[in-house]
């Protein structure tokens, strides 16, 4: 069955993005890191599971029984108790997914900067714009290619880790996989900044600096509950205004952790406001891209 011309043009735009990502060795590098992560987990961890309960855990050959405990006031001693297998898995996954969230996004944004540069480069963008597809469709094709690639890479890493641990322990916790859409969505939110600033300023480098700035600033914003009480009225209002406007990249990791732990999410606000920020930023990016001369 033949595709419509619209689908054919979109497939061209997608294919161009995929090939570019592949040629930049970005995809291969991410796949290698992900493979290394779950292979390391697979070989490093050895567990003996007896009737579903954890009796011993060996990591890198050292045998131990993971414990957690509390200080017993009456007895005047620290009372330890065995950690449940579930909690142990949650801990491992939270660590891996948190690292994937922060490091993956930072590295991914850095690696995709040349992609934006190539897309907007004189001699390439004008050739693309001369094709019979609208500017918004062209940009959408580029973005879809990036989003799909990030989604597949996140699936490979998170899914691989989840599968390895599940096979090793026999404990299957599908809610761990919620990290995949969260990593993808938050990457998309931060990519909106690098893309939009690159379109507006023709400087992907500036876009990357601003995006990194927003990520690091979000760590400060995440401490709003501690900071606001010690600020003056005006400063606190200004701080909270910025908090509501800018993406809460760092705070979203808490939402991710709560979802991975299958705990009740205390507040969806950081995720929702970040998605809204991304939505508006993409809107500005599409508007600029549709209006500007190349």
């Amino acid at each position, binding site marked *: 069955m*033949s*595709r419509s*011309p*619209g689908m*054919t*043009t979109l*497939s*061209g*735009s997608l*294919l*161009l993005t995929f*090939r*570019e990502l592949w*040629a930049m060795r970005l995809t291969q590098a991410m796949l290698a890191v992900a493979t290394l992560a779950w292979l390391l987990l697979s070989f490093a961890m050895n567990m003996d599971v007896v009737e579903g309960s954890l009796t011993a855990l060996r990591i890198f050959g050292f045998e131990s029984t993971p414990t957690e405990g509390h200080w017993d006031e009456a007895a005047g001693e620290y009372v330890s108790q065995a950690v449940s297998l579930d909690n142990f898995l949650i801990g491992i996954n939270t660590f891996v997914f948190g690292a994937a969230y922060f490091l993956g996004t930072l590295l991914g944004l850095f690696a995709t900067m040349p992609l934006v540069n*190539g897309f907007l*480069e*004189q*001699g*390439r963008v*004008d*050739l*693309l*714009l*001369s*094709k*019979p*597809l*609208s500017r918004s*469709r062209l940009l959408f094709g580029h973005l879809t290619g990036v989003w799909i690639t990030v989604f597949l890479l996140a699936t490979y890493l998170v899914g691989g880790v989840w599968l390895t641990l599940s096979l090793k322990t026999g404990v299957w916790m599908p809610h761990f996989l919620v990290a995949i859409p969260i990593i993808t969505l938050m990457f998309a939110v931060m990519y909106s900044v690098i893309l939009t600033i690159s379109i507006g300023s023709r400087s992907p480098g500036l876009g990357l600096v601003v995006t990194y700035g927003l990520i690091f600033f979000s760590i400060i914003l995440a401490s709003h509950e501690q900071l606001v009480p010690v600020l003056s009225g005006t400063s606190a209002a200004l701080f909270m205004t910025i908090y509501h406007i800018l993406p809460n990249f760092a705070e979203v990791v808490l939402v991710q952790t709560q979802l991975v732990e299958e705990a009740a999410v205390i507040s969806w606000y950081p995720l929702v406001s970040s998605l809204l920020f991304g939505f508006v930023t993409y809107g500005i990016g599409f508007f600029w891209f549709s*209006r500007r*001369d*190349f």
Partner: protein
Amino acid sequence: MSSPVIDISALHKTYSSGIRRRRVEALRGVDLVVSPGEVLGILGPNGAGKTTLLKVLLGIVRPTSGEARLFGQPAGDPSARQRLGYLPENHRFPTYLTARQTLDIYGRLAGLPDADRRVRIPSLLEQVGLVSWEDTRVGKFSKGMMQRLGLAQALMNTPEIVVLDEPTDGVDPVGRRDIRDRLRSLKRAGTTVVINSHLLSEIELVCDRVLIMNKGRIIRSGTVDEVARQGTGWRVEVDQLPEAFDPTALQARLEESGRTLVVDSGQPATLNALIDALRTSGVQILGVERHRASLEAGFIDLITSGEESGEESSREEAP
């Protein structure tokens, strides 16, 4: 008369740049009509507005005012570009793609179905002489090979109009001849071609009509002969001129040697009037020579003399 492929009227484009929003008028009231099957060459010095004119036509740059239509549709309408092929100046293909992959991706972007691409890609690679390089990454291509691949890319969708910005830039003489031959075959097939080039000899050999731009305006339009004739005239060699003889009154000028009179006008009546006056004054005429300027000479004359006959922006119709 068939409806024009390109119809541009009162087109203005002003760029603003920098913090002070410095304004540059790239196009200042351009009017142009191009008929189907015509091969039009656009000439002009750097900054004349040639590339901007093409980019407005393709919707890559938005006009400040005026109107540009392609196949009767507003420039920038994607559907109009369905029937167009474009080779930009200094185009850059992704270096990691092979020639075949490049044509496949740009063919997809042109909306060409799979079956058509399977037929067109080998055929075009053959036509531009890149068959033996089809699986080589374009990063290894020379400038000339890139231009030939660019031309193949522009022809992927069998366009009704091909817009080429400096198509022979960086191409060796043999490659230039090949591109010229390809353009001639397009012309025979009835394809409309618009070429923007600095190589006037290329334009002279291929184009039906030439358009000269300067400072954002069309200052001359016509056939190659018509434009070249702007620099055509006569040189009259004489023995000795009497003191009282005033050549300027007869639209002639005396060269420094003092023995050659130059008539810049291409009108025979002007030459005859000069000869009559010389004979009446008893001047011996040693020889009369017609000099026909090349397109290049005509172009240089037009630009350097600052001729602004196109300032009124008369509508430039296809002959």
